[in-house]
């Protein structure tokens, strides 16, 4: 009997591994399993300390644009905001732009950080696709992005009224993610 069990052990091990792989495949299809995704370490933690030069564009003053420098302390400004890392050279950023615009038009405060981008390229990008941001910081060296644990643009963080990160998305904002972000925002308002 013990020998029988021993002979069954390889089958059992293979079956367990197979079940695991099947679960991975299924979750990959629904997007719940992404072996490549890098987690954020900031959830539930205050945003890192940073100070970035602001981004100014004369043509955008009418769109509520302020060329104020962006600092970590500004994020704990008593209301929750969405912080989006983007770049003009990033194709998924173009893809998610309409959803950011929709959030902006719904009155949700969106701040942007231009990651390793030239100011004129950023301006051209926003001019072409529309500017959803009320404030923009310029992370030319990409070091603030590293402090946020950003591995690639676009990435979006939801920061609550006290400056604590509550939600995070790596990759372009899908419609579901945008809805989730909006509802989270209401929750922390």
């Amino acid at each position, binding site marked *: 009997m013990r020998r029988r069990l021993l002979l069954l052990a390889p089958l059992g091990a293979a079956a367990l591994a197979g079940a695991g792989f099947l679960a991975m495949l299924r*979750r990959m299809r629904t997007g719940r399993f992404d072996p490549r995704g890098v987690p954020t370490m900031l959830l539930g933690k205050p945003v890192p300390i940073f100070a970035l030069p602001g981004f100014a564009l004369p043509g955008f003053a009418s769109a509520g644009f302020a060329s104020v420098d962006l600092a970590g302390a500004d994020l704990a400004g008593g209301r929750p905001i969405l912080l989006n890392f983007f770049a003009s050279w990033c194709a998924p950023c173009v893809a998610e732009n309409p959803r950011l615009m929709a959030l902006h038009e719904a009155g949700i405060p969106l701040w942007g950080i231009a990651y390793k981008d030239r100011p004129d390229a950023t301006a051209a990008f926003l001019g072409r696709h529309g500017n959803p941001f009320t404030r923009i910081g310029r992370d030319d060296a990409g070091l603030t992005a590293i402090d946020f644990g950003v591995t690639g643009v676009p990435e979006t963080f939801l920061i609550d009224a006290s400056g604590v990160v509550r939600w995070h998305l790596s990759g372009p904002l899908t419609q579901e993610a945008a809805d989730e972000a909006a509802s989270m925002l209401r929750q922390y308002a």
Partner: protein
Amino acid sequence: MSPELGHFALALAVAFAFAQAILPLWGAWRRDARLMQAAPAIAIGQLVALGTAYAALVWAAVTDDFSVLNVAENSHTLKPLIYKISGSWGNHEGSILLWCLILAMCGGAVAVFGRALPASLRARVIGVLGLSACGFELFALLESNPFARLWPAPVDGRDMNPLLQDPGLAFHPPLLYVGYVGFAIPFAFAIAALLEGRVDAAWGRWVRPWTLAAWCCLTGGIALGSWWSYYELGWGGFWFWDPVENASLLPWLTGTALLHSAIVVEKREALKVWTILLAIGTFSLSLSGTFLVRSGILNSVHSFASDPSRGVFILGLLALVIGGSLLLFALRASLLSSSGLFAPVSREGALVLNNILLCSIAAVVMTGTIYPLFADLLFGAKISVGPPFFNATVLPLAVPVFIAMSLGPALSWKRADLGAAVLRLWWVAVAAVAAGLFALIGMQALPALAFGAAVWIILGAIGEVVERIRLFRVPVAASAARFAGLPRGSFGTTLAHAGMGVTIAGIAGMSLAQESITLTKPGEGVPLAGYVFTLVDLHDAPGPNYASRVADLRVTRDGAPVALLSPSRRTFPVQKMTTTEAAIHTTGFSDLYAVLGDERDGAAVLRLHYNPLAPWIWFGALIMAAGGGISLADRRLRVGAPMRARASAAAKA
């Protein structure tokens, strides 16, 4: 030759595969001699059909038939002919077809060379091969059809990834696949033995040459892949513990264990159940290696490319083949009784130790490869497992293997005297310790240990021959006669073990590599490891489907010219990609290795390496494979040879 002919031949091959699976197995079960005898013909038929299908694919690639999707996506009119041919297996669909072709070749090989096998065993082996062929050919036909058409046909193809346009990589996949798929034969023998309920010494003798052939090809394939990454990827690394590399290492480790445990089955009728399990396990790992990588699970560690529907098909196929054979194992393995008893200290004992250690290494490599996936699935923990982990865990397990490699052959079967064996190898041990201590003077502990191990293994292998021919103990002429009379199999063992030692020495040497990265203007010299690399000139050079930028370097040592190196950067316009072509000058004992980087202000970034003993890594692998080949030539191991000898003896009488 049209792609439709290839498509039809593939469908025909599936039909043959079903016939090959059903008729012989049914015949063996019903003891129907006619059905059993049909097996070889069906296997040959399947091989011819698949050969036609593959030829059609190669033809489409060679004639630039861009109406075939696969060709349009992977070829280009300007691509050199050799890469048009190798491009046929340089993509998913084509490589699956090649995989199936090699499986059909295995069936054909058993049909042709297995004439001396008992009829029922041969029928079952061919039947099991046909059964696995059914699944994979269906996969090729239904899920990854290489003959899919594209309309309208583009004017030109997209070209192949430039990194793959390389002679080393052109032949790496076929060799590797022959190795992977070759293990289907020991697997089929194992399943046939479970069906028959019998494993004996003859079974062990029949299985060994097939295992050995597959092992040789796998060794060569892995070495070729590692060599390619050494010279093509451009920073002198040769093994990265990447999931895809690990996938090829796993069946090599268990295949090596199988090679050794089959000896025990043949000589001593022991370890039968274990050998059967190893044969199943090795082929299962080959399958998982080739297919899991394509399912989007392991591959997704690398990239976003995933196709869950293909993945589910693959997983189902693996579940059928692996699960089915392990179920059969669980049900039938208890019928196999081992008779040979042996003491822990004996040749068998050493081989058991070798098996435990090799399989432990395989288990660790497998755990490390899939652990991040399961940690994510089960605990939601995101972790990485990389080279530092594998180096830290595999090395301690490898050291006892190295020790046993020289000690094991010195032990006698059944019961051995460890002290006597150690005494016999005393001069080897002294030399190894001396080499290790000597190496310790100039370097760190780990390379010194590896050098000691290399000397121990190489001299131990030579010592085995010295011992067998009783050199210096009997007159030289008698020794020479003994030498000539040695079976080729024991030469093979000696060579294979010595080759491992050479590879270890090469790896140890590589850990002493020196490198220099400089921004150099033409006319300037860079000193490295006693050599001076002088940048003579930077110029452009045209290529067939690329343009290249070449740096000419003159290497001198103490003013005397040593070599001219011309590393280059190639830009491929169709794929919009740049590759670096390293220039390597080898002396046999070291490599001088140069890579050309970016240029600014008339100066070029040069990355120069001095890699001591680097060529030994692949030279050792070549010796290992050659050792296996020599063993294959041993007539004791030739399939059915004993039976033929007996038959001719009977005829004479």
